[in-house]
């Protein structure tokens, strides 16, 4: 169901997080992750992730140029995303993905569909 690289990636993150232990809230959020996509399959996007919740990217509904740049920044299908801080008013918001933190505007985050 998952391409090999995703599984490798997920196990990598798992290890990394176990080592980090409870120092960050990523630990707790990681446990919730598998449940999240089931509630509203196919329709959830990045903006619907609650604080401390994680999701797995399914696809990017954006023009080629934008989605390519997003993928270069780590927003690849199969990768785990966690929302972080935001500008006042909640837009743009920082997302943790693939070892880095990237701020996206709401209209971009709306187009990143979760599994």
């Amino acid at each position, binding site marked *: 169901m998952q391409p090999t*690289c995703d599984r490798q990636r997920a196990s990598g993150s798992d290890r990394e997080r176990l080592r980090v232990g409870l120092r960050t809230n990523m630990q707790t959020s990681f446990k919730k992750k598998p449940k999240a996509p089931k509630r509203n399959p196919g329709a959830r996007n990045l903006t619907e992730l609650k604080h401390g919740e994680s999701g797995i990217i399914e696809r990017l509904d954006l023009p080629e140029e934008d989605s*390519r740049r997003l993928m*270069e*920044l780590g927003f690849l299908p199969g990768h785990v995303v966690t929302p972080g801080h*935001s500008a006042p008013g909640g837009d743009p918001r920082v997302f943790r993905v693939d070892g880095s933190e990237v701020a996206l505007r709401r209209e971009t985050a709306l187009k990143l569909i979760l599994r």
Partner: protein
Amino acid sequence: MGDCHGCAAATIARPPVQSRRPIVAIAAPPTSGKSTLFNRLTGLRQKVANFPGVTVEHRMGRVKLEAGREIYVVDLPGVYSLSPRTEDERVTHDVLCGTMKELPRPDAVLLILDSTNLSRHLILAAPVLSLGLPTLVILNMADDLERRGGDIDSAELAMQLGSPVALVSAAKGSGVDKVFQFLSGTTLGAAAKPPLTELPVIQDIPKCRAWAASVGTKTNYQAPAPPLWTRRLDALFLHPIAGPAVFLLVVIAVFQTIFKGARPIMDAVQTAIQSSGLWFGSMLPDSALRSLVVDGIWSGVGSVVVFLPQILLLFLFIGILEDSGYLARAALIADRTMARFGLQGKSFIPLLSAYACAVPAIMATRTIENKRDRIATILIAPFMTCSARLPVYILIIAAFIPEKPLLGVFFGTRAAALLGLYVLGFLAAILTARLLKSTVLRTSRSSFMLEMPPYRWPTVRSLGLRLVDRSRVFLRRAGTVILAVAVVIWVLAHLPLSGGKTPPIEHSLAGMIGHTAESAIAPLGFNWKIGIGLITSLAAREVIVGTLGTIYGMEGTSQSVGLQQALRQDLTPGGAAALLVFFAFAMQCMSTIAVVRRETAGWRWPAVQFAYMTVLAYACAFLTNRVVSIWF
């Protein structure tokens, strides 16, 4: 996607160029610390350059090796992949593939990757290594990786990639000796060899990422723990209430420093320029030459050089903000407000800087990666009320607006008028931004993606190099373009000679132009004297004050009561208001034109900008003159 071809195959064999120094190119993703390493390697032996026709700049530097050998290192724009889609990527792609006409194919490559984010940065390794050039893979920020409990088997990575690997901390300097060692081994025209290992040839990002993940697994890459201090600081700097408060404090600090803090230094520089000009003048015999040197060149170039302290302070600030990582947070906080004008968060600091001087502001737009956003920011920056407009505003306001209290003693009619002019410039800027962004410079709103780098201490070395670099750029322009303009304006104001002496300014070429132009500027309420002032103020806006002083035979400063009285007799209130509006909108600044040409790599944008601003200034000054003349 993924139609990108590895460019190794497309490279045409070039005849080996003898008698030149080897060239080593730096390829790296953004935020990998490549500039820090470049500075480490080259120190001050570097210069910023543009390839013809591109706005993206690169830096060339000489690296001194043992036994007096030298090689060139070229620092290319940071890219995540080698697909030539954006201009940054095209420049990097073309240089690495040897298809850039101005530069021979590099003899070796330094591939710099952030070791704390290796899985993602390894995506760039595949296309770079498939070029077949001798490559040193530099894992930067190795100290961070170690401190945060990450690990990598670098020997295994070297095996996997088929290239030597060096763990380096460019900021601390550890491991840099290995880079020098590699550079020493670089020779001319090393034959391109096929890469040792299987690399994903098609540059499909998911495939490259999967390859990077498998390399990471094979080399036991342990990603480091999240940067704790960054998380803590972000909890404060991006806090819903504390965040904007800190942001506001930073903005006020920048504003105060460039306005108030720079003032004494600028005054000192001004005094130094004036007294050295006088001393220099006393050494020369009284002649047209003396006038050219002292009144033309010395004071003309001096009137621009006086902004250097302000520019340096500003760049010190921007340097600290950028190197520490706060600039990205500031851009995040400012983004929503800027988006209303069609701009983005990264435009905020440059536009704020433009209140001091448009020149450093335009240079500061380099932090905006999106080209259209950057050009839009460059085009509107000169509308911000720069400090060169201030003497003109103060002179006219003092001459025409009687001081009456509006809100207590602190805020009177004059302060209100000055504030009004600041607002006017700001409105012109945002309306122009909206106009540009909804027409010629339209971008998708999704193009805003901002990577938040971890916080780091800015190093004195990097800040110092940045200041030296900026002052070089600025002074070089002062020494060329502005010098030329100063000479031209002096010639216009002092020729033709009558009886071996310079004529009074009204009979000079500038005076003739002023007289000729009078019919064109009369609808604005300006006479020929103002016309001369408009010509001389092309060097720098505040020069008009000195010119008017010369014409009226009064002391040419904005506090000069004599000059204010003379102006009151010679200019209607409508004309005065029109003059203020004209200065608020017109591009009366050669330095700005020169820097826009440099930053946009061509005359197209500065020409558009000059025409647009002049037409706007003329039209608005005309309307102002008409409207104000009805009332007064």
